[in-house]
């Protein structure tokens, strides 16, 4: 069993810096997602861990071993590619056998491992087909099978579910979680789908432009985002972010923006008066009563709830969630209230750090 550690890892492509200085410590047996927008360096990070790219600087460890100079085949890892990368000229059986063959296992052992993995993934019927004779979901399972056969220390996944339809994706999410529980191996999972990251991970590493923004369990990332980027990135519909000012008066802090004035509790020592950003989750805006007013601009009914967009003064828009039974009329002006115990305050800037203590 082995964890994974990146220390001060830097990666440049020519003159372009893809990863600035990554520090990340993944514990033994942990399921960690690397989450971030397209081009932020998730794949690059994973490929460095696999040994397919070499870091420009810094150190990567798997277990106790520094692996910077260890070729991919000797790192005791398995990787599932977004494209599946099944060998087209080999049958499913040969595909799954390949890593064992390369390790010089005798034929009988190879057969046993392949059969076991095939059974686990319901591939037994398909063993003698070529990859092109399989559906996307079946190909995905073969790719998974090829990783499973040899019980590596660390599993790497690069968006393995992104080519599947929504239903199959949900099913495979559950399968992977179960697999992780059963094998107890360290798994590093790259995705740009926050739902996948939230539902599967022990911890999520959120990356923006090659820099780690937050590394924490899903609940914490949601409840106490470390900065403005994380706040806006996690959650569907996303958090309302309102630019305004912080003011200090008579021992308490106030946030002010056009049409909004709100006391904010528990600010950190570092907070200063001036520009700031208020973050409010849609579920913490309550329509019905309160001292604030807004005009109903849009109502989306999803079935189990409604998403309502309110236009407040100064061009500010707030998204809120209401129960399914409560359907405001478009164009009406309604009273609403913001749950000031649950708001987030950030310093100005795209990645302005969090200023208040988590509720």
């Amino acid at each position: 069993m082995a964890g994974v550690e990146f220390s001060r890892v830097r990666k440049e492509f020519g003159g372009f810096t893809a990863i600035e200085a990554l520090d990340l410590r993944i514990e033994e047996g942990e399921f960690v997602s690397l989450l971030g927008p397209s081009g932020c360096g998730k794949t690059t990070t994973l490929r460095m861990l696999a040994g397919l790219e070499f870091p420009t600087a810094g150190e990567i460890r798997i277990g106790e071993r520094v692996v910077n100079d260890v070729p991919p085949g000797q790192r005791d890892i398995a990787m599932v590619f977004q494209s599946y990368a099944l060998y087209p000229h080999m049958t499913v059986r040969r595909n799954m056998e390949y890593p064992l063959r390369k390790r010089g296992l005798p034929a009988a052992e190879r057969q046993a491992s392949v059969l076991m993995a095939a059974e686990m993934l319901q591939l037994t019927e398909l063993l003698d087909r070529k990859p092109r004779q399989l559906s996307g979901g079946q190909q995905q399972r073969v790719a998974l099978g090829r990783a499973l056969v040899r019980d590596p220390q660390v599993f790497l996944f690069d968006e393995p579910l992104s080519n599947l339809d929504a239903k199959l994706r949900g099913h495979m999410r559950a399968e992977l979680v179960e697999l992780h529980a059963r094998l107890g191996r360290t798994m590093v999972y790259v995705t740009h789908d926050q739902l996948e990251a939230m539902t599967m991970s022990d911890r999520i590493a959120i990356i923006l432009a090659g820099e780690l923004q937050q590394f924490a369990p899903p609940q914490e990332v949601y409840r106490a985002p470390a900065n403005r980027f994380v706040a806006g990135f996690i959650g569907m519909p996303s958090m309302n972010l309102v630019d305004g000012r912080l003011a200090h008066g008579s021992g308490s802090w106030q946030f002010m923006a056009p049409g909004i004035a709100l006391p904010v509790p528990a600010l950190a020592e570092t907070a200063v008066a001036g520009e700031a950003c208020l973050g409010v989750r849609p579920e913490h805006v309550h329509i019905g009563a309160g001292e604030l007013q807004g005009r109903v601009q849009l109502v989306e009914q999803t079935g189990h709830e409604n998403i309502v967009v309110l236009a407040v003064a100064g061009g500010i828009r707030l998204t809120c969630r209401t129960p399914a039974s409560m359907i405001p009329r478009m164009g009406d002006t309604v009273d609403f209230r913001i749950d000031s115990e649950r708001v987030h305050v950030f310093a100005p800037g795209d990645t302005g750090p969090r200023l208040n203590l988590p509720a």
Partner: protein
Amino acid sequence: MMRRILFNLSVWSAVLIVAFPLFWMVVTSLKPQVELWARPPALLPLEPTLEHYLTLLRDTSFLVYFRNSVLLSTATTLLVIGVAALGAYSLVRFRYRGRESLAMLVLFTYLLPSVILILPLYLMMVKLGLANTLVSLVLAYTTFALPYALWLLRSFMAGIPEDLESAALVDGATRLGAFRDVILPQLLPGIISTALFTFILSWNEYLFALVLVNSDATRPLTTGVMNMLISSFNIEWSMLMAASVMMSLPLIIAFSLLQKYLTRGFGAGAVKG
């Protein structure tokens, strides 16, 4: 219906036009000497004979030339494919300064007419002590087949997803092993068509062979047959045709064996998305 008939007619006439010289070559090679100049010419020989073939095989150096051509073309093809496959791999997989310009530069050789290259090449071969050997021809043919082969294989190689190789590396293969187990099988159709192209080019080459070798022991078929059957005074038509038939046979056989590779699609469905 009408259109189909018209289409078939035009296709068949095209086939006939192309095939007729071949047919005439075979027919002429089977005619006894007396029938050659008969007027009007007979479509089929009245008394078909194999005497020309027998004479060629028994009384001339035809078989030596044939052996030379086979050796020469096979060696050239192997050398060109070996170098071009590795070169194409490097041009596609590794990133280094001047990679694109290098690929362009390679094609530049085709801008020079080969007549200009022949003399320096000949002098070089003399200096290397290779004058008048098959090796000198192999090297010369390689110089003009390699650039094209490199580009052909490069485009085939570029169509092979890099993930396949990455997967093989993670699965425990060395770079060479990944190349052999995963890249090469994917590249096979490309290699076969490139090999065929190179083989035909070497098999039919005339100019370099004329200049670089001039002894009967080292002449390939093209210059050998020319030398033997065509003189300023006379052309041995029926022998020439018999020689031509035997020269075409290897190519025809190779084509019919490899046809399915030439037309087969490449690793479809290997990679999703």
